[in-house]
């Protein structure tokens, strides 16, 4: 019952809108079925399924806004939640930045749903855990991992006539494999919308190979090095930076995208000309909902074109105040790359360092987006196109802005899950990446 059909959802949303006496009303239904399994020390530790469905109602009297949620859908319950939202709105202070709800919109459906992902069962999850653990056990390795799969629907309607309904799926698998003596560690991650392409048997081999190959790591003096960042490693820094692609903070002078003297850097060359980033809800591998949180329709939009900043995110209030068109917030980030794999990039590297994963990344200086963090689970020295030996992990202090000006070559983009919108990020070879200290951590 957590996943409603479009007709079921619309019936409830229409009732809510009709019940409201406020100046405007927006209602949203979100239903999810989340399945997960967690394992560590070559044993399953927890597994579960969490189903949930919520109705959120937001109403406004003038610029006074109130919101309430409920998880029952009888007529009496719907009346209660609308009344509660209206009571809260009447007591709320006026929000000077209030924007009226959007009017009727046309949304082009995107392919966010995969039947294969929605069909994952507890038995499938147990099998994935078993297929992760068994090969590790046989080679005296220790696996710890997590699989989370999700199917959901979201539907919203407002009193100005906007309505949207769509179903989505996602699965995210990560596994850390360590050697028994704790001197080697490898990792693999796979984030997919369509689970039918997931192959645990080949993925677990990646983590196992890295665990075994990373034993007895050697120390290399910290400094500036040519690095090959695998997509997940690069994504850690790049996703952080895109959190600050916000027009308001740039216009207010508190962003790396603020211009000295006022204004923002839209139209300015900020990155290497090979950097091209866009958002597209219809992207085949990383589709996003066709509307954003405000109900604005998402379209393909260029964010960085040939290294030039083309678009920043505008809230509806800020766009209105600045006389800009209303544009939806992006639902994904796609960084274009080339055609080469990480292995191809390694083969063509005379000297450098391969980084599997970046970890515990934090902002050091928002003025320059200087980030610090560490390498983890497979760092290797490359010489004459080959992985020569494993390296001790490094701490880096690097800005993704500087990093994306020091590009040597971009490989083929792959889908990466992160703590935000899904992304397509290429592996990349980057010059002068700044490692500032060594870590003994494995």
């Amino acid at each position, binding site marked *: 019952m957590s996943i409603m059909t479009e007709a079921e959802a619309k019936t409830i949303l229409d009732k809510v809108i009709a019940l409201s006496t406020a100046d405007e009303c927006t209602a949203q239904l979100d239903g999810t079925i989340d399945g997960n399994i967690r394992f560590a020390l070559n044993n399953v530790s927890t597994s579960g399924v*969490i189903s949930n469905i919520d109705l959120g109602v937001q109403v406004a009297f003038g610029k006074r806004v109130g919101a309430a949620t409920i998880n029952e859908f009888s007529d009496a319950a719907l009346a209660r939640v609308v009344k509660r939202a209206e009571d809260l709105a009447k*007591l*709320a202070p006026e*929000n000077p930045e209030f924007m009226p709800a959007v009017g009727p919109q046309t949304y082009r459906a995107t392919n966010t749903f995969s039947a294969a992902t929605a069909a994952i069962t507890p038995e499938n999850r147990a099998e994935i855990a078993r297929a992760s653990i068994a090969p590790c056990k046989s080679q005296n390795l220790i696996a*710890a991992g997590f699989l989370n799969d999700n199917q959901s629907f979201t539907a919203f309607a407002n009193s100005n006539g906007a309505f949207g309904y769509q179903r989505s799926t996602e699965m995210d698998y990560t596994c850390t494999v360590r050697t028994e003596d704790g001197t080697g560690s490898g990792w693999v991650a796979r984030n997919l919308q369509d689970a039918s392409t997931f192959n645990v048997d080949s993925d677990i081999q990646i983590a196992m190979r890295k665990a075994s190959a990373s034993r007895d790591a050697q120390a290399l003096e910290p400094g500036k090095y040519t690095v090959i960042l695998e997509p997940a490693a690069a994504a850690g820094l790049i996703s952080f930076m895109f959190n600050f692609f916000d027009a308001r903070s740039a216009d207010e002078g508190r962003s790396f995208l603020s211009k000295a003297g006022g204004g923002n850097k839209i139209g300015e060359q900020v990155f290497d000309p090979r950097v091209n980033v866009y958002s597209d809800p219809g992207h085949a591998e990383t589709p996003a909902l066709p509307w954003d949180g405000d109900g604005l329709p998402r379209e393909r939009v260029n964010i960085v074109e040939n290294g030039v900043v083309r678009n920043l995110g505008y*809230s509806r209030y800020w766009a209105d105040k600045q006389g800009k068109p209303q544009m939806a917030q992006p639902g994904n980030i796609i960084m274009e790359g080339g055609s080469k794999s990480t292995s191809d990039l390694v083969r063509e590297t005379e000297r450098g360092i391969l980084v599997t994963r970046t970890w515990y990344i934090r902002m050091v200086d928002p003025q320059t987006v200087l980030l610090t963090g560490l390498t983890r689970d497979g760092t290797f020295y490359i010489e004459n196109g080959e992985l020569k030996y494993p390296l001790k992990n490094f701490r880096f202090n690097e800005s993704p802005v500087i990093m994306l000006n020091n590009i040597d070559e971009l490989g083929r983009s792959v889908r990466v899950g992160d703590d935000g919108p899904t992304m397509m990020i290429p592996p990349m070879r980057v010059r002068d990446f700044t490692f500032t200290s060594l870590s*003994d951590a494995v």
Partner: protein
Amino acid sequence: MDRRSFLAACGIGAGGLLLPGFAGRAIAESQLVETIDIAVKKRLADAGLSAASAAGASYCDVRVGRYLRQFVITREANVQNIVNTESIGTGVRVIADGAWGFAATNDMTAEAVAEAARLATAIAKANARNQTQPVQLAPTPGVGEVSWKTPIRRNAMEVPIAEKVELLLGVNAAAMAAGANFVNSQLFLVNEQKYFASSDGSYIDQDVHRIWAPMSVTVIDQTSGKFRSRQGLSAPMGLGYEYLEGRAEDKLESANGAVISYGMSYDMREDAVAAARQAREKLTAKSVEPGQYDLVLDPDHLGLTIHESVGHPLELDRVLGYEANYAGTSFATLDKRESRFQYGSEIVNLFADKTQPGSLGAVEYDDEGVKTKQWDLIKDGKLVDYQATRDQVHILGKTASDGCSYADSWSTVQFQRMANVSLKPGTQPMTRNDMISNVENGIYILGRGSFSIDQQRYNAQFGGTLFYEIKNGEITQPLEDVAYQMRTPEFWNACSAICDESDYRMFGSFFDGKGQPSQVSAVSHGSSSTRFDKINVINTARSLG
């Protein structure tokens, strides 16, 4: 911190409905002061306990929880968001055939709780089939029907919203009048009404309160494009609204009057004015020369260093490898406890506790019914113990749990979470100003800044909010672009002086994330100002060209 939840709570997330990213339904302000009748909770708990026993469980605990949160979020003269949420339901955990099982329901009827208990027992029996070692639960005596409440003087949930809005908008106006270009201020209030019952014979009713009043003040030099922010110097606390009284006896002024620090209460308006002035100073402050310095770390900074380099590596589940795929493992392996590893210098004594009044972790009983206590982790610089729950302590040869089990909701499984981990004050009389007067070439660091540490907790880098140069025993000028890098054992072994109890204050972490799926917890870290010798400081200034 669980960043996504935090951003969503601040209204910085996806936009749309003004709902927070935490589980819960939005409720009216008046409902924040309601409680559930204890007889109702006992009836639900007994239904769960009986059903689990009948289904074949050898142990059962039932947690009936009502979790309340209020967020008031402002910037400059605007209230951006006010949200009240409630999450209510029951979680049942059992042991059957030697394995754990868990199920939860938001249906507050005896039948639904009994059904959850039966489901949990079935899950436990299914899990038992692949279990290699049966769960060993350390004995915990039943305590009968007892209750406990965070010792607060003013329930923040009872304070009218208008008073909170007036406070924050007053704080913002004071910062703007003092020269700020922007100011964000918030109130985060939490009340956990938790009822725990177990087949050991405990019925424990607890009413837990927490408060946090974060603030960020930003100044801009538009000509150069330079900007700097100064965060508030408050700490999240296990206190009521009285924390915001800003009492004179809770203020501590540094030697040259550069900084006022706060203890058991906080003057937010005063700090906002100081923040605007200090943020402006940062624009022109001297950029630090990299090199080795003696660091004097204020408690509102050192708390985070303790959290990352002592609190996390001494969690037994991390040490054993249960968190290997996410938070990581630990360098402080079991053999280091056996050999009494020299974690720090001889003056370093770090203890875990769940009892300090005003701390975020303070409760009378943990989430598996264990009476809380204080215990040593590092004694005279040596590693002596870890933090462990009922099903782990046997690994350490102990017969009683440390009492540090916690779940962030009725719907999540309790597991080992960090207790308050604190540094004992020095035994010799020494004030913060005494300490600074003995430093020839150093940096005094206050407040939280960027923090990052590796997955085994060896290599860390910390920034801060405020940095002051110390030359020949005097604070001479503010510094900028400071971060220090450390290796945990060397850092704690470089500890050369700790101020006495008069300087002891608490730092807090409101959203500490752990586990998959991730859960948050809140924890405090007390210390007095502490000196570390010859620590590597880097300069973090960069140019984007």
